């Protein structure tokens, strides 16, 4: 081909729709089917808000996961960091006499610090992110059990609970948090230098290095952010349950990875969008909610989730191959 041909880019809205066509259609079909099979229950305002609340924790984790996967890495420790920060927040209030803001801040700082540690190890050694965060997954989970003695720490304190149970108008706080993080992450990834460096590190780290990008710092920031989001989500979740649960967030990392991959983020790095991950989050959420409404138990939900992931990624591959 001569250099002049085939060199026109598409406008970004069109590209968003086009890139996410498969998942958007999938989501749409699911909603249509559910509107028939549930006699409209699915579309009740209460249920829709319910769905959003249910997906909010997975969404926050998946945003962090998207950053990690775009850099060519992964963060398996999010579920455990979530549990540790959650139990810490409840425990510090109940056992150590911390004020609510003090406990929450401390819990989030500790979770974030663990993320920073992940990032530090990944950026300064050649240990793969999979291994570093797998180790952290064990460590943080163990720490959560030790701290709580393996028992839920009950914390029936209104000013604490409100973090997870409050409403702004008709919208639950967790949904608000999700939307705020969604907006921040979209901007971070698509509009800032940091975001561009994230893509460069995953797309071709040699090119990033040769262009003067600070690759270690970029990786460090990504895992710190993921740790922060996990810690924050942990606090919200435990506040909502009025109890610091060391078992919270088991296998949440898998849901976050699933949502990210459903959104079309490539496991080999360099490609992915927060907006697309959000669609992935919604697909998993609607699927769970719908199967619940239809009275199918959670074991079936797992099988359905697996099938949907395979299907979605397969369709995505077909689409790419055709290009």
């Amino acid at each position: 081909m001569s250099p002049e041909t085939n060199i026109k880019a598409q406008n970004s809205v069109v590209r968003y729709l086009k890139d996410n066509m498969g998942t958007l259609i999938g989501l749409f079909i699911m909603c249509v089917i559910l509107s028939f099979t549930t006699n409209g229950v699915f579309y009740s305002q209460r249920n829709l808000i319910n769905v959003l609340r249910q997906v909010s924790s997975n969404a926050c984790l998946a945003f962090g996961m998207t950053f990690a996967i775009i850099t060519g890495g992964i963060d398996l420790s999010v579920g455990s960091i979530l549990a540790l920060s959650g139990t810490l927040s409840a425990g510090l209030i109940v056992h150590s006499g911390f004020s609510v803001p003090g406990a929450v801040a401390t819990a989030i700082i500790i979770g974030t610090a663990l993320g920073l540690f992940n990032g530090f190890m990944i950026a300064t050694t050649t240990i793969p992110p999979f291994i570093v965060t797998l180790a952290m997954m064990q460590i943080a989970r163990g720490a959560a059990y030790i701290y709580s003695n393996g028992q839920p720490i009950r914390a029936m304190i209104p000013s604490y609970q409100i973090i997870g149970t409050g409403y702004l108008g008709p919208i639950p706080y967790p949904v608000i948090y999700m939307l705020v993080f969604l907006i921040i992450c979209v901007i971070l990834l698509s509009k800032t230098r940091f975001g561009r460096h994230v893509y460069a590190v995953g797309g071709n780290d040699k090119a990033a290095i040769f262009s003067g990008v600070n690759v270690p710092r970029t990786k460090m920031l990504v895992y710190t952010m993921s740790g922060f989001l996990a810690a924050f989500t942990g606090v919200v979740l435990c506040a909502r349950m009025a109890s610091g649960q060391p078992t919270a967030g088991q296998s949440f990392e898998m849901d976050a990875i699933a949502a990210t991959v459903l959104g079309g983020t490539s496991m080999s790095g360099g490609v992915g969008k927060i907006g697309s991950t959000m669609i992935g989050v919604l697909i998993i959420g609607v699927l769970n909610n719908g199967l619940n409404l239809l009275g199918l138990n959670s074991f079936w939900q797992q099988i359905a989730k697996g099938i949907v992931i395979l299907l979605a990624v397969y369709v995505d591959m077909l689409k790419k191959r055709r290009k």
Partner: protein
Amino acid sequence: MAETGKILLQMKNIHKRFPGVYALKDVNFELKAGEVHALLGENGAGKSTLIKCLAGIYIPEEGEVIVNGKSHIMQSVADSQAHGISVIHQELCLVPYLSIAENMFLGRERNVGGIIKRGQENEEAKKMLQRLGLDFDPNVLIKDLSIAQQQMVEIAKALSVKADILVMDEPTASLTDKETEVLFETMRQLKAEGIGIIYISHRMSELFAITDRVTIMRDGQYVGTVNTRETTNDQLIAMMVGRELTQLYFKDKVNPGKVVLEVKDLVSPPFVNGVSFAIREGEIVGMSGLVGAGRSETAHCIFGLDDRYTGQILIDGKPVHIRSVRQAMQNGIALVPENRKEEGLVLINSVGYNLTLTVLHEIFRGHPLGNPKREADEIEKHINELAIKTPSAEQLAENLSGGNQQKIVIAKWLATKPKLLILDEPTRGVDVGARAEIYGFMNELAKQGVAILMISSDLPEILNMSDRVLVMHEGRVTANLAKEELSQELIMRYATGGGNINVA
């Protein structure tokens, strides 16, 4: 701007070692404002390593670097950029899923408080591209560009840095003459502005066209510096290889035997639109054409990489079913691909690993756990046969120089003892010494009766090595030229679609 003639850069007594390789031994280099100074040397001579010592990627163990009068060893890429040094590296350094503009400003994004000013970047990128005569939309992703187009983006990227010292490590390896001329024109402008340019290329004619001085390196050592106007091609080559190289092209006359490969009406849209030709034993058939004419794609069909083509392939006169590389190999076909780094080598594995990849079934035959002795013999044979310069068979392929990597790819396919060898751009980025060796090889193979299809954009190579030349244009063979009637003009005419004759 710096006045012309002022010394911009001095590199003195530079030493750099890698495990098993003494890459730079006491190297000296000097660059003046407003000059184009070539670095010349065989593959593995240490040119790129010297550049990387300047770019802050490697830190030399000994030696002094003086930039604008100040002695300072570059500690990082950012440090080097801050000292007014901009580098086009030999290997393409672009991020495939970022746009042209995003790549051009990577690491020095136009931003306010971390938020990127996309509009400004696009505008600046557009201007830079236009300066190089490129009418690209800066929003296009790099992955959608051809290699040559990517190379031009790489050049635009380097030019968009306000640098006093511009380094170009083989920028023209994948460019056509037209683009090269645009590049040279730009270089002349930069020279006039007082910028110093370090230029690396294996194409001797380019050195005479654009450079003022040439510094020659051999085996990591400084050989000397000469004024381009006062030297000759032969002198440069002699300094570079350390001996007289009397002959570059080796081509004996052969009497072609029976037809080995025949292709009939090969179609695989959009690049292959009806290709027919035949090749005989002992024949070297050159395949010429512009970038995008469908030459590599045709080769891919024959080699089973494209399984959606229609048409017929006959080997030794018999129709064969080739829809996979395995089937192609079983039919005695080998392909040395265009892009050695992506398609030819497993870069992160050793030289030995790469050399035996195509013949594993033989090494493991009768030895379920492999046959180390046989494997070592095989590896040693190839390293010697093609004179591959490597400290050992354990060295990682990515640490070898371009020419030596190419020899590995050729060797690994020769190991399959093919009767049809397809070479796609066999000497791209390969130095004269290694080229002469590769040509010698091709000649030997042809004499042994191997049929060779040589796809090449290098016209002298096509003219000197081919018994016959097929010219392609827009997915069709537009000419089949015998050795006697070959000329550069004729090939170019058919390559640009100037009319059909004599199509077999």
